[in-house]
């Protein structure tokens, strides 16, 4: 049996229910593990052990009173530093929010609280979720637990690294262009981005509102299913949230939906630019599905090679608008040098934002500016339609799509930090999914010869989460990749 801090929600909730484990004991184990490895991993921006233990004691008291709230009762969950948790710091890894404390809970957080979870710490990320390596944090540099010289992926790099290192039982991330799936792949864990609108964005600090979704990161597909069940739902506080017509019991459906499936493999995704070991690994995974009786269908997504430019126009345009609220007036950093209204804005923002955030705000401002709007922004929105249609056509033939999550395993620190374009191309397989608003999941599919995790991406139909989980669960349970643990 693995150490407590490396076990799954399913295993731990069974032990809690049986009375062989308390939430306090589990939370203490996670805190002790964090104290032991955090100097190396640096997954957290902030944590408060006493606050977590107070929540754990309350959970144990509920259970003792016969009022346990479900499978998340008493489970320590790490939270990305972009979701509001009342009374805790909310910095988005940015200096501009250095002293900010959330006055309220995000809807997702309120739901996890209502499910009995212990909210544990603030996990590191790229500043305002802009990045693919978590090197854009203004606070700490998170290491990949599989190789401390390498990046954990991003932007939810702290969420992935904490999980891989045993510093949380599961974590919550957010995904605008791959920010849950890519770090999950690079750190050897499961990461799931729900259908756009399934999970409320209220209290998720906005980066690109038409793309952002919060989602679970966990050790197994079953754990991700448990978490998503608690997180989803239409929210009057987010008018883009959507009610699923009938919400399935995802965890129960894992056992009943067994395939075989019709699975699409986009020929464009296994062409050029992919690491040969990643390619061989994904081809082996595809072969496994074929051997299990699933039909593998060669499909084409002819516009997806345009995803990166479309994304970096639309996401930066939305970011330039969303981040206008950080103006040094009502909250956040205010420059001490400002002497009039204009310099209050320009100096506070110049001092408070990091390089990548400035780069994206400037780019977004440019593509929206007079004379360029039609050429860039409107055209990108039209190509977005073509990308969405590519998926609609593909899903007329198949139940799910298989691809790599990332074209390479985790790269070395600093390797791409001076080349934004190379960094943007890390997300080439994940971005199209956000543009089309579809659900997708990354799960561990093996290790490279250097011992670095590889992730298999499964893309589902809109609101097809139950099938998505089932397809991924089948592969996971037939292999033991999810049981492999980083030696740290």
């Amino acid at each position, binding site marked *: 049996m693995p150490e407590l801090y490396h076990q799954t929600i399913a295993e731990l909730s069974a032990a809690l229910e049986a009375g062989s484990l308390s939430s306090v004991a589990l939370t203490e184990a996670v805190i002790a593990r964090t104290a032991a490895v955090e100097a190396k991993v640096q997954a957290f921006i902030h944590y408060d052990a006493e606050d977590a233990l107070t929540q754990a004691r309350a959970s144990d008291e509920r259970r003792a009173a016969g009022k346990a709230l479900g499978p998340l009762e008493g489970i320590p969950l790490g939270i990305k530093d972009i979701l509001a948790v009342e009374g805790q710091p909310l910095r988005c890894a940015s200096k501009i929010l250095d002293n900010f404390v959330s006055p309220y809970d995000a809807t997702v957080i309120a739901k996890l609280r209502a499910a009995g979870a212990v909210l544990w710490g603030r996990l590191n990320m790229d500043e305002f979720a802009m990045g693919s390596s978590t090197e854009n944090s203004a606070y700490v540099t998170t290491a990949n637990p599989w190789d401390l010289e390498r990046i954990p992926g991003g932007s939810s790099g702290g969420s992935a690294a904490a999980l891989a290192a045993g510093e949380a039982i599961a974590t919550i991330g957010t995904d605008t262009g791959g920010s849950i799936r890519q770090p999950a792949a690079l750190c050897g864990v499961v990461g799931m981005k729900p259908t756009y609108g399934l999970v409320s964005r209220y209290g998720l600090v906005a980066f690109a509102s038409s793309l952002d979704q919060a989602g679970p990161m966990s050790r197994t597909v079953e754990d991700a299913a448990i978490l998503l069940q608690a997180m989803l739902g239409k929210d009057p506080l987010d008018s883009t949230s959507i009610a699923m017509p009938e919400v399935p019991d995802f965890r129960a459906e894992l056992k009943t939906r067994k395939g075989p499936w019709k699975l699409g493999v986009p020929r464009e995704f296994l062409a050029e630019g992919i690491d040969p070991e990643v390619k061989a690994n994904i081809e082996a995974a595809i072969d496994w599905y074929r051997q299990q009786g699933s039909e593998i269908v060669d499909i084409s997504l002819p516009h997806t090679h345009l995803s990166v*430019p479309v994304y970096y126009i639309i996401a930066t345009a939305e970011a330039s608008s969303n981040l206008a609220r950080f103006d040094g007036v009502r909250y956040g950093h205010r420059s001490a040098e400002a002497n009039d209204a204009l310099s209050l804005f320009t100096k506070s*923002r110049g001092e408070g934002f990091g390089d990548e955030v400035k780069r994206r705000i400037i780019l977004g401002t440019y593509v929206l500016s007079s004379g360029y709007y039609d050429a860039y922004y409107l055209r990108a929105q039209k190509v977005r339609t073509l990308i969405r249609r590519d998926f609609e056509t593909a899903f007329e033939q198949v139940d799910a799509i298989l691809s790599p999550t990332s074209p390479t395993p985790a790269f070395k620190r600093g390797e791409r930090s001076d080349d934004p374009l190379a960094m943007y191309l890390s997300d080439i397989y994940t971005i199209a999914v956000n543009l089309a608003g579809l659900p997708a999941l990354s799960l561990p599919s093996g290790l490279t010869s250097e011992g670095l995790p590889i992730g298999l991406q499964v893309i589902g139909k809109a609101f097809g989460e139950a099938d998505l989980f089932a397809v991924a669960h089948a592969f996971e349970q037939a292999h033991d990749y999810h049981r492999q643990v980083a030696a740290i």
Partner: protein
Amino acid sequence: MTDNAHLDIDYVARLARIELNDAEKKKLGGQLVAILEHFEALKGVDVSEVEPTAHAHPVENIWREGDSAGSVYAPETLAKMAPESRDQQVVVPKVVE
């Protein structure tokens, strides 16, 4: 798409209300030109008959009753968040001469 992706970094930084120093302007300017060149790939796509997508799942206007749900914030909570406040009001530099 424009034929010569010309980016006046001073002008755009002013629009974005971000002060950049000279080193930042030089570095950012060069990187942005490379990124804009990458965007040129969109030029070759025929989008003449295509509607733009603003959201993956089309959303219509969402209506709700015009009743107040109250405020989650007390004035002192809001004032406490501000970098500078006085008498539960946010202090800013003089904006009107």
